């Protein structure tokens, strides 16, 4: 890869605070075009909050957010409209619309495309549902009739509906069976390569980190403590990072990767 890489998400000096609890302080982060960035950190370190901050669901007390070249904090409505169709978000618990079937959920973003024929729209939705590994009959089900893992997949199908430039995934493989999780990793990796997708991936799943992530950012001490490739993480001299990447699970995941 070239040295001068295209930055699609640029965060500078982000400060997030709930009451007296400071979640982020002076947080900087760059995400490059076409990469899969894994964001890790202990529970409650503010990974979900960071994701919400970038997509504009949480207004930080201070800092700059630039996505695809638009300044989201100062650009106002206009900048938001420009990027809204170019990113997709999959929330930690799916966040599907409970009154719509899975197919209708996936069709929601497709309705932004003017003049798209309803039959084509349904067919595209079915394609997305199938691509994330759900069966045809799942399309007609309501979210309440799905299992937790199926809801995740449906959430991913909706996030990918428009083939966005950036997708934000909050723990996509948590709660999936190992085979399903591996298929999910493959799917994300494959889509990212063939569509040039940039992926912001919050995860606790070490297998996912080793299998698909180009870079890892570690959230700790209210900021992005370090970021770099997995190999670089192994050399970081910080107790939490060291434990994370040298724990028994990390070694198992590394061996698993070595075998494939």
């Amino acid at each position, binding site marked *: 890869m070239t040295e001068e890489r295209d930055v699609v998400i640029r965060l500078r000096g982000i400060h997030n605070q709930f009451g007296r609890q400071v979640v982020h302080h002076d947080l900087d982060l760059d995400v490059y075009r076409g990469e899969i960035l894994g964001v890790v950190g202990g529970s409650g370190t503010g990974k979900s909050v960071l994701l919400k901050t970038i997509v504009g669901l949480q207004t930080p007390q201070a800092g700059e957010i630039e996505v695809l070249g638009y300044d989201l904090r100062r650009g106002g409505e206009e900048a938001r409209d420009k990027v809204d169709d170019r990113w997709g978000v999959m929330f930690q618990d799916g966040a599907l619309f409970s009154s719509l079937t899975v197919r209708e959920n996936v069709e929601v973003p497709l309705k932004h*495309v003017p003049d798209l024929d309803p039959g*084509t729209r349904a067919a595209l939705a079915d394609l997305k549902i*199938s*691509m994330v590994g759900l069966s045809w009959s799942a399309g007609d089900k309501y979210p309440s009739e799905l299992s937790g893992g199926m809801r995740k997949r449906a959430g991913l199908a909706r996030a990918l509906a*428009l*083939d966005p430039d950036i997708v934000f995934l909050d723990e996509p493989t948590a709660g999936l069976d190992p085979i399903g999780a591996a298929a999910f990793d493959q799917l994300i990796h494959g889509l990212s390569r*063939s569509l040039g997708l940039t992926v912001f991936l919050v995860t606790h799943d070490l297998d996912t980190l080793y299998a698909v992530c180009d870079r890892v950012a570690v959230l700790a001490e209210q900021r992005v403590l370090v970021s770099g490739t997995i190999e670089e993480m192994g050399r970081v001299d910080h107790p939490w990072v060291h434990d994370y990447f040298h724990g028994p699970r990390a070694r198992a995941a590394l061996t698993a990767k070595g075998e494939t």
Partner: protein
Amino acid sequence: MNDALSLTVETAADHHLVRLSGVFTVHDLPGAEPRLAAIAADRAVLLDLAALERLDTAGAWALDRLEARIAEAGFTLETQGAAPHLSALMRRVDAAIPTPDLPEDTGPKGLTGRLDAIGRRVVDMGKHGGVFLNAFGMFLYRLGQSLRHPSRFHLTALVAHCEDVGWRAVPIVSLLSFLIGVVLAFQGATQLRQFGAEVFVVDLIAISILRELGILLTSIIVAGRTASAFTAAIGSMKMREEIDAMQTLGIDPAHALFVPRILALILMLPILGLVANVMGLLGGGIMSYLVLDISPGIFLVRLIEGTDVSNVFVGLIKAPVFAVIIGVVGCNAGMQVGSNAESLGRQTSNAVVQAIFAVIVADAIFSVFFAEIGL
């Protein structure tokens, strides 16, 4: 960057040459689809993607559909010049094209279908009655248990619900029954004046408010306010699996949720009915004074002499019954909520309609009963 899609078709003797260039994404699909559909499936197709810069899944899907159509007609589609990441995407999409995996629904159709639906609804209604009785029985059983083991009773919850159900409803109940008293006095006055029997307006007001309107009006207001609140509260707990969690923790939902709520209603509804009676008489009295010049003194004398105190009891004896109806309907509807937000809304409005309906039916039965025993 070349942003537009250009699509050209050249027809040779043995194949169509389809050239795509620029970007082909979901936004280009409405324009491109008819043109792809117009390519006749009468010879082989050569797809030239050398100049295609970007393709998304929607574009790949459209090309895949074209290939499927050509293949169905017995010809082949060949792709040339596609960048590796584009052909990877096309392969991925092709592998994911979904196929129906469930047989079509073949229920009865036409007239039979309609009869079938009506029949099902009748059966559902019958079941509904059963479910209601079940909830009522459950409440009585748990209430009995609470009485035997008072230490396990949720007193704090009861007091909180009493405040919510009773105290907070006082303003609206007072205002509405005051207004009903005013209306009765006014309407009564205009009618009775024709016979010179103005003074009987007091009897009219007293009997109708004490016997019927005071408690009925209160029950309808409470049904609207409280049955819906019960359903929403219990229903949203049901929706988030809190009820399931309670059960696994050994807490009985009927005991923890139904008993304090319904008991609060039973305690509060008679009091609210009493408030409604007083306010209705007050409204009637004031209006009688203003329109008919019946002084408060005469009103009181007439009220005490002309109206038997049994009217008050006939009115208030209904209160606990109505309270049970409203409470059980509200709590039961909450337990029927499924796991989506829509069923919560549907059950909430159902609860209000059913509670008001049941209260009025019960009131009619009471009227017949009291008429028969001569009260």
